[in-house]
């Protein structure tokens, strides 16, 4: 029994630690929760360290979960993003007037949910991970209790999320009916064996489509993106940062293992859907982002656009494309932490500084923050030599290799559109006269911004280690027998 538990030790530690943090918080008298935050950070670091080494090659617990290299990559990614988001929250919560101690444990649980999603080899387990993550984030999005739009964000996210979960479950049920199993490996075998009759096949495709819709909701793919701008805008910025990066990574973790690997035999049928979804998602995201005056909302649409670029990799469906998507998620996480981190760093009570105009003249009032924001915006645009460029480069290369010329063409065209609004932020910061006096950055957030900026640059200049890790993750993905 103990031996069987070794593979899931990171997961157990995550859940136990989060519970412990919750209890400690409940019995402490401090009002600023800095200690709780640090406890969470240490816990996430421990989980990341434990996940570094993939534990075993097989799936455990009746083929339900596998801590393979693929899961390890996402575990580390989610924990690192979690650490960043927690540190961003410390000052931001105080400034925003949020005094709920359960905030940090909830974030920890959300990370645990991502870990389960990445490791699940059974669709039911994957669903549990998805719900664990989502429940925590629904609450987090509403943690600005006295603000209407935060409440609205939470409720909207919850209702639409519940709807998507239902579709996902329905899809899983259809797949189970036709293949007789919820284990990914079993499904893969059933689909490749060719025992399915014509009409059965249709049901399988329908089920897969519903699973894609459920996950497409989590990653904010068009047309299931409508919640994203409102929720991103209404939620506390530190939570938005987490949603845009870790939640999206979780969604892709489940999507890649399910759709790209386990249901690979259906790739032919799924390809047109994914193709259109990718093209529409990036185009809609970029076009709407052009007209945003709020930085937070603009970043929400930008996050939709990036889902589109990532879907280009999923559409390609090769191992190289999968590795490219994994790398892209890391680069995307780093640059978004920079952008949202700066918003957290300059936010003050009564002055959230969420519109682009609030950043006018930042180049003069705080040159370092302006430089970091510039790097984030250039990286999001895909200007070399930054992390975002290398991510796009690899995704586009893999897609061209798979023959997706037109899709890459659309993606390239979208990159040009995106330059207009990302550079608009740079323009406001440097070309416009300052709106107020010197803008001080909050210390915790400043550290996160600095670290994430360095990571963004390093991922562009020396991406080889992370690229190698991403490729290794895809080398041997366990599906369970």
């Amino acid at each position, binding site marked *: 029994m103990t031996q069987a538990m070794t593979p899931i030790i990171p997961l157990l530690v995550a859940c136990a630690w989060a519970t412990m943090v919750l209890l400690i918080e409940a019995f402490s008298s401090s009002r600023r929760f800095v200690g709780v935050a640090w406890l969470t950070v240490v816990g996430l670091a421990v989980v990341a360290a434990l996940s570094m080494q993939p534990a075993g090659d097989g799936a455990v617990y009746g083929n339900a979960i596998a801590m393979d290299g693929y899961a390890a990559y996402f575990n580390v990614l989610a924990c690192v993003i979690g650490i960043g988001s927690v540190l961003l929250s410390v000052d931001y919560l105080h400034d925003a007037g949020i005094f709920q101690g359960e905030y940090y444990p909830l974030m920890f649980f959300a990370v645990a949910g991502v870990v389960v999603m990445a490791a699940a080899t059974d669709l039911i387990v994957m669903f549990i991970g998805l719900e664990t993550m989502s429940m925590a984030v629904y609450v987090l999005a509403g943690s600005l209790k006295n603000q209407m739009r935060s409440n609205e964000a939470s409720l909207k996210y919850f209702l639409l999320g519940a709807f998507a979960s239902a579709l996902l479950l329905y899809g899983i049920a259809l797949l189970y009916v036709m293949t007789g199993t919820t284990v990914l490996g079993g499904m893969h075998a059933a689909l490749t064996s060719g025992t399915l009759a014509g009409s059965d096949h249709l049901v399988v495709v329908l089920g897969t489509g519903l699973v894609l819709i459920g996950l497409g909701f989590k990653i904010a793919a068009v047309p299931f993106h409508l919640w994203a701008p409102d929720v991103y805008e209404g939620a506390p910025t530190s939570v938005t940062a987490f949603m845009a990066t870790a939640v999206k990574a979780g969604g892709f973790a489940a999507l890649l293992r399910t759709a790209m690997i386990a249901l690979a035999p259906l790739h032919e049928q799924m390809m047109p859907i994914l193709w259109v979804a990718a093209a529409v998602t990036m185009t809609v995201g970029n076009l709407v982002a052009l007209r945003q005056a709020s930085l937070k909302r603009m970043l929400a649409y930008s996050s939709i656009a990036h889902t589109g670029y990532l879907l280009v990799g999923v559409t390609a469906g090769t191992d190289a494309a999968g590795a490219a998507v994994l790398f892209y998620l890391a680069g995307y996480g780093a640059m978004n932490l920079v952008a949202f981190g700066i918003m957290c760093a300059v936010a003050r009570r009564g002055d959230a500084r969420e519109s682009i105009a609030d950043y006018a003249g930042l*180049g*003069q009032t705080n040159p370092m923050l302006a430089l970091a924001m510039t790097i984030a915006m*250039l990286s999001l645009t895909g*200007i*070399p*030599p930054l992390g975002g*460029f*290398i991510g796009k*480069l*690899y995704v*586009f*290369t893999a897609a*061209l*290799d798979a023959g997706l010329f037109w899709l*890459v*063409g659309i993606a*390239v*065209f979208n*990159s*040009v559109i995106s*330059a*207009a609004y990302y*550079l*608009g932020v*740079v*323009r406001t910061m*440097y*070309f416009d006269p300052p709106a107020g006096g010197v803008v001080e950055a909050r210390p915790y957030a400043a550290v996160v911004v600095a670290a994430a900026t360095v990571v963004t640059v390093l991922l562009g200049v020396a*991406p*080889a280690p992370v*690229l*190698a890790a991403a*490729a290794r993750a895809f080398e041997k993905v366990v599906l369970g027998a």
Partner: protein
Amino acid sequence: MRLLSLLVWTPAIGALLVSALPKEAETLMRRVAVAASLAPLAIGFWIWRLFDSSRGDFQLIETLPWLPSLGASYRLGVDGISLLLILLTVVLTPLVLISAADSVHKRVKGYLVSMLMLETTMLGTLVAIDALLFYVFWEMMLIPMYLIIGVWGGERRMYASIKFILFTMVGSLPMLAAIIYLGLQHAEASGTLSFALTDLYGTQMSLRAAQLCFFAFFLGFAVKVPMWPLHTWLPDAHVEAPTGGSVILAGVLLKMGTYGFLRFVMPLFPEVMAGAAYWIGALAVIGIVYGALVAMVQPDMKKLVAYSSVSHLGFVMLGLASLNTVGVEGAVYQMLNHGVSTGALFLLVGVVYERRHTRLISEYGGLWKVMPVYAICFLIVMLSSIGLPGLNGFVGEFLILMGGFRFDKVLGAIAVSGVVLGAAYMLWMYQRVMFGPVTNPANESMPDMSRRELGVIAPLIALAVIMGVYPAPFFDMMRESVAATLAHGKKGPATISQPHAATHGGGAHGAAVTRGGAASTAPGDAALPGAASPRAAMQAGPPPAAGRHAVHPVPPRLAPRPKEVHFSSGGKAGATDKPAANDLSNPNVAIEKLRKRLADLKAAEQQAPAQGKAPAEAH
């Protein structure tokens, strides 16, 4: 010794140093920045010394792994063409940084840092010989320029800067896709993924794929050049940019487009290029005439110079499209000329702008009396831009027209009108600004050029004269590289292209150089760089004689005639004015003949300016 890396990254280190200085220490900042840009100047000349101009391949190669899984690496190297542009860059940047003391007074630190970063990216673009690395520098180049226009620019800087960057990105992102595709094609053929230029040259692909890739590259570079009708960002960017930004934009950035044609489009897609050459030439000629006509009616001096750039870059593109050695060499030379002359023109417009804060021609008049030194400097620079024999512009334009005529007579004939129009709009502007009575009282007490302003212009004027009377060292440097670039178009057996290159190298052209050099020793070679003379002497030594004799025995009529599309039109044009048809059956010999005639003409022309220039200056 990683000399090229040193060259590329010293300005960046200078930028770091400048940004570490306190905000108050402005004078120190400016000095550090100038020093940081003088270092690449020294390194550039050092590279020139080490450079072996008898080879047409990449030299001083450096390699470091960068993206091992894609086969892209940090790979640097220079050939004659890039070395010339490197020298232009390292000469112009210090001048711009020195002149910033007069023209930039707000947010000085940011300006100096941007300018130094711009130099790093420009030099990086020129030395990168890995397609992806090239793209990296190419895109990075946009950001400092965007900031320079946007922060230190004029009233409509927002519009101009975003237009500049969007136009360029629309062009360059399809290029990225094409680069990736080329790499994948190469991988399919050879089994290994690589983006090294030397690997990509000669990649086999279907005609349709080659056409699409060609178009992607063409778009990227044509926007940058800019070719008509993609030029509309240029006047806006120039008018709004600060003086230094305009100088670098016109002097170096635009050359990146034409450099891209030489480095990528011509060697990578020789067949498609040969097919499209006529249309490119036609667009270039439209650009020449259109730019000149629009320049004529501009009320704003800077806009006038900006449109003259469209016209001049049209000449460069015509030279490249001609696909013959004369035209392409002329185009490369004209790239340098344009950098020197137009850079100087922008600096000079900046001089009066600093005094009056207007660039409208109608605001001036009679400056000759108020600012005589300025008027003389302006005169020389303007004449060099027009292409007066004896100054640099003439050599380039003449060779381009030579190549253009051989390429297509009609295009050549229309292009000549551009020269006439160029003289017209420049002289007319000069007349309105400099001559007549001082009509505007505000101009009466304008001080003449300061020592610093004079010091910035003087090197450019000196270069314009040197390049006009003694172009030999520059042609020495580029000759083999141009031959190598054109050699990619040859599909025939290697034995054909080899002697062809050899005859170009040491043959008739070498003789022409010697004669040109000898003719020019009279007017003023005291200012010539010492290194250049022995170089020319070496060229003048035994190889020419041997080479010239070799031209005739070689006729590769014995060998199967190579299918060179780019020579066919040259042969056609030559056949009409030259009766010796038997010689012309071999395009190489035909070219040698024309080359010799050109050399004679050039030598004759170079003597003329020596006499023609003196009265002009004394005027």
